Protein backbone atom coordinates (compact mmCIF):
# COMPACT_ATOMS: atom_id res chain seq x y z
CA UNK A 1 0.00 0.00 0.00
CA UNK A 2 1.22 3.48 -0.83
CA UNK A 3 1.71 5.87 2.07
CA UNK A 4 -0.81 8.34 0.68
CA UNK A 5 -4.43 7.87 -0.34
CA UNK A 6 -4.70 7.18 -4.05
CA UNK A 7 -7.66 8.07 -6.23
CA UNK A 8 -8.88 4.75 -7.62
CA UNK A 9 -10.15 4.26 -11.14
CA UNK A 10 -13.72 3.91 -9.91
CA UNK A 11 -13.43 7.29 -8.14
CA UNK A 12 -11.67 9.21 -10.92
CA UNK A 13 -13.40 12.08 -12.68
CA UNK A 14 -12.47 14.72 -15.25
CA UNK A 15 -8.85 14.86 -16.38
CA UNK A 16 -7.85 12.00 -14.07
CA UNK A 17 -10.49 9.70 -15.56
CA UNK A 18 -9.17 10.59 -19.01
CA UNK A 19 -5.59 9.94 -17.89
CA UNK A 20 -6.53 6.53 -16.47
CA UNK A 21 -8.41 5.58 -19.63
CA UNK A 22 -5.45 6.57 -21.80
CA UNK A 23 -3.12 4.49 -19.61
CA UNK A 24 -5.46 1.49 -19.79
CA UNK A 25 -5.75 1.83 -23.57
CA UNK A 26 -1.95 2.00 -23.91
CA UNK A 27 -0.86 -0.71 -21.47
CA UNK A 28 -3.97 -2.73 -20.67
CA UNK A 29 -3.84 -1.73 -17.00
CA UNK A 30 -3.13 1.33 -14.87
CA UNK A 31 0.37 1.20 -13.43
CA UNK A 32 0.76 1.83 -9.72
CA UNK A 33 3.19 4.65 -10.48
CA UNK A 34 0.41 6.46 -12.35
CA UNK A 35 -2.07 5.90 -9.53
CA UNK A 36 0.35 7.29 -6.97
CA UNK A 37 0.51 10.54 -8.93
CA UNK A 38 -3.29 10.75 -9.08
CA UNK A 39 -3.61 13.58 -6.55
CA UNK A 40 -2.66 16.01 -9.33
CA UNK A 41 -3.78 14.67 -12.68
CA UNK A 42 -2.27 17.50 -14.71
CA UNK A 43 1.21 16.98 -13.26
CA UNK A 44 0.85 13.21 -13.70
CA UNK A 45 -0.19 13.67 -17.31
CA UNK A 46 2.89 15.77 -18.10
CA UNK A 47 5.17 13.25 -16.40
CA UNK A 48 3.67 10.43 -18.43
CA UNK A 49 3.80 12.48 -21.63
CA UNK A 50 7.53 12.99 -21.11
CA UNK A 51 8.00 9.25 -20.42
CA UNK A 52 6.17 8.28 -23.60
CA UNK A 53 8.09 10.81 -25.68
CA UNK A 54 11.45 9.76 -24.22
CA UNK A 55 10.97 5.99 -24.08
CA UNK A 56 8.34 5.02 -26.65
CA UNK A 57 9.03 7.37 -29.56
CA UNK A 58 11.86 7.15 -32.10
CA UNK A 59 14.97 9.06 -31.11
CA UNK A 60 18.76 8.78 -31.19
CA UNK A 61 18.92 5.60 -29.10
CA UNK A 62 17.09 2.43 -30.06
CA UNK A 63 14.42 1.10 -27.71
CA UNK A 64 16.56 -1.77 -26.44
CA UNK A 65 19.34 0.56 -25.30
CA UNK A 66 16.86 2.86 -23.58
CA UNK A 67 15.25 -0.04 -21.74
CA UNK A 68 18.66 -1.38 -20.73
CA UNK A 69 19.59 2.01 -19.29
CA UNK A 70 16.29 2.11 -17.38
CA UNK A 71 16.88 -1.37 -15.96
CA UNK A 72 20.40 -0.50 -14.82
CA UNK A 73 19.30 2.73 -13.12
CA UNK A 74 16.40 1.03 -11.34
CA UNK A 75 18.68 -1.80 -10.25
CA UNK A 76 21.26 0.62 -8.85
CA UNK A 77 18.42 2.35 -6.99
CA UNK A 78 17.01 -1.03 -5.87
CA UNK A 79 13.62 0.06 -7.18
CA UNK A 80 11.02 -1.92 -9.13
CA UNK A 81 10.36 1.08 -11.34
Amino acid at each position, binding site marked *: *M*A*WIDLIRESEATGSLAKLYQTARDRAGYIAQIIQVMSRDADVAAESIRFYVRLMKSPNALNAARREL*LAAVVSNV*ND*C*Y*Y
Partner: protein
Amino acid sequence: MTKSHVETLQSHGFDDDQITIATQVISYFNYINRVADGLGVDPM
Protein backbone atom coordinates in the same frame (compact mmCIF):
# COMPACT_ATOMS: atom_id res chain seq x y z
CA MET B 1 26.41 11.90 -15.79
CA THR B 2 29.72 13.74 -15.63
CA LYS B 3 32.14 15.16 -18.18
CA SER B 4 34.22 12.01 -17.74
CA HIS B 5 31.20 9.82 -18.51
CA VAL B 6 30.44 11.85 -21.63
CA GLU B 7 34.03 11.59 -22.84
CA THR B 8 34.02 7.83 -22.24
CA LEU B 9 30.81 7.43 -24.24
CA GLN B 10 32.24 9.60 -27.03
CA SER B 11 35.39 7.47 -27.10
CA HIS B 12 33.17 4.42 -27.67
CA GLY B 13 31.53 6.06 -30.66
CA PHE B 14 28.30 7.39 -29.16
CA ASP B 15 27.34 10.68 -30.77
CA ASP B 16 26.04 13.75 -28.96
CA ASP B 17 22.41 13.02 -29.87
CA GLN B 18 22.68 9.57 -28.29
CA ILE B 19 24.43 10.90 -25.18
CA THR B 20 21.72 13.52 -24.75
CA ILE B 21 18.98 10.88 -24.80
CA ALA B 22 20.95 8.53 -22.54
CA THR B 23 21.41 11.29 -19.97
CA GLN B 24 17.69 12.05 -19.98
CA VAL B 25 16.73 8.37 -19.66
CA ILE B 26 19.05 8.01 -16.66
CA SER B 27 17.68 11.19 -15.10
CA TYR B 28 14.06 10.25 -15.75
CA PHE B 29 14.42 6.88 -14.06
CA ASN B 30 16.24 8.38 -11.10
CA TYR B 31 13.30 10.78 -10.77
CA ILE B 32 10.56 8.18 -11.13
CA ASN B 33 12.36 5.78 -8.77
CA ARG B 34 12.39 8.52 -6.13
CA VAL B 35 8.70 9.22 -6.66
CA ALA B 36 7.91 5.51 -6.33
CA ASP B 37 10.02 4.96 -3.23
CA GLY B 38 9.08 8.27 -1.67
CA LEU B 39 5.36 7.52 -1.83
CA GLY B 40 5.61 3.79 -1.13
CA VAL B 41 4.39 2.51 -4.47
CA ASP B 42 3.62 -1.20 -4.76
CA PRO B 43 5.21 -2.98 -7.71
CA MET B 44 7.41 -6.86 -11.80
